[in-house]
């Protein structure tokens, strides 16, 4: 069995008066793509935000590389080696593609520039629009830029939130291929509504329902379990 990289144990998260996460458990192992699945509002995005410290956990533990990170501020969590691609991509609209990537590059080392070259081979469109303002990019290009920005640092873990959301099928295909490539270099936790995409990329799955982990296992198990898919995802 592969080494555990990230472990969430009984995570409870409140946003204002609402109790959003009510016991999330899951584990991401080195080199795997772990997919968080569930209906809208189940708590998948909040789980990623909680890992990043954007909506801090009220209780429970999050260990990354055997270190407790649930009480750390967001910037420290990012500096431990976690890259985050939010649902809304969070592109800096006024900065060019180049500047968006350079801002994200915490240290301008030769390794960082090597990774930059690598992401530009994954997303050649970004090279074409290198001097274009982030706000003038299409939805697909913004998604690519958001992923490139997270990958340009030496992230041991990438959290990617709904990369296919609102994209044309042809672009989804490109994004999926890029994630498959990234998987060779890093561990990925993916939130995805598109089950077709999730099932092709994911090694393991965690089903979240009403803020709780209800099932976790190998992706193949879920693919063959129509009853579970129907019950928690409304498909099959």
């Amino acid at each position: 069995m592969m080494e555990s990289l990230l472990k969430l144990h009984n995570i409870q998260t409140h946003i204002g008066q609402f109790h959003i996460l009510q016991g999330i458990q899951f584990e991401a192992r080195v080199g795997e793509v772990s997919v968080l699945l569930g209906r809208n509002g189940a708590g998948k995005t909040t789980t990623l935000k909680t890992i990043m410290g954007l909506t801090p956990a009220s209780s429970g533990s999050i260990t990354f590389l055997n270190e407790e990170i649930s009480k750390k501020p967001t910037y420290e969590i990012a500096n431990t080696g976690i890259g985050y691609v939010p649902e809304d991509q969070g592109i800096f609209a006024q900065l060019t593609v180049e500047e968006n990537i350079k801002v994200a590059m915490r240290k301008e080392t030769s390794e960082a520039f090597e990774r930059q070259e690598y992401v530009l081979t994954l997303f050649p469109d970004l090279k074409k629009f290198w001097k274009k303002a982030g706000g003038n990019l299409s939805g697909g290009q913004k998604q690519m830029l958001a992923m490139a920005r997270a990958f340009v640092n030496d992230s041991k873990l990438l959290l990617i939130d709904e990369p296919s959301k609102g994209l044309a099928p042809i672009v989804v295909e490109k994004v999926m291929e890029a994630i498959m490539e990234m998987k060779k270099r890093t561990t990925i936790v993916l939130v995805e509504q598109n089950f077709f995409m999730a099932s092709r990329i994911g090694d393991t799955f965690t089903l979240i329902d009403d803020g709780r982990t209800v099932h976790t296992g190998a992706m193949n198990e879920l693919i063959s379990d129509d009853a579970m898919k129907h019950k928690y995802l409304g498909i099959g």
Partner: protein
Amino acid sequence: MKTSNLVSKYHVLFLIILLFLIAFPFVADSRTLTILFTQIFIFSILAMSYDILLGYTGIVSFGHAMFFGIGAYATAILLNTFEPTIGVFIGSIAVGIVLSGFVSFLVGLLTLRLKSHFFAMLTLAISGLLLVVAEKWRTVTKGNDGFTFRAPDIFKDRIVFYFCVLACLVIVFLILRRFVQSPLGRLLIAVRENEQRTRSLGFKTLHYKVIASVVAGVIASLAGSLYAVSLRFVNTSVMAMDITLDALLMTIIGGVGTLVGPIVGSVVIEFAQHYLSGLARDFPIFERWIIFFGIIYILAVIFFPKGIVGSILQALSKWKSKHEDRKIFALEKDKEHSP
């Protein structure tokens, strides 16, 4: 190639304006206009400093006048206390800068953790507090009555002072332009656009906001020092909310986050103030010039929501983006059709 052409066009425009401003006092024999231009330069420096906060970092401060006031009082008190020489004048600017830097650092550290509207209110409160201190500490500030003081003899010639302020404006503009184009400046823009996202990229945004606050405070203090010398008088009005509002309006009307915009904004506002109030001599209705001034503000915000320079830059950026897209697609088509 195109970009370098565009850059050189900006440089040429910059040089033409600079040459015009250098030649102006010799060509136009108008003391009033020379003084008006000097005021414009001073408020341009203040508005640019505010643009670092509002335009580049997304911080709304209602207390920016306190730094302007610190600079004005530092210069006025030192020139009043010691022999008014150039050395004392430069020393007083340095004292104002150090004091403003220290106060802006403290204020930034204490308040920038707060959400923007709380921060704005707290800066208003701290600025109000300093204003009260200035009013009550009469032995030093002479309170609301203020005091006159002697400026260095060389500044008795208005043209010399005009060039001194113009030089300060150019130097501050070049330094701030360098600052906003540096990696740190880009990071400030990132903070303005999406602070949460910048934090999740691994940056402790508070540090960068405090740096912006200190830079803005220091530059505002320089503007305050020059302002005091231009009037040879100082009272507590240099710390009043009106100064902050002027800087805010100059920045908004000119175009936030452009650096050139605040200069354009201060030209528009200073000229509008000057001519609208001047019209009252012929047309009594202009005794209420402030109403027309308000109408100009409203129209500017309706028709140029991004400010004058901001709107022009936005249109240029859209045009450039479309032009580049077309070029890229044409290149791709050529590649497809080439054997």
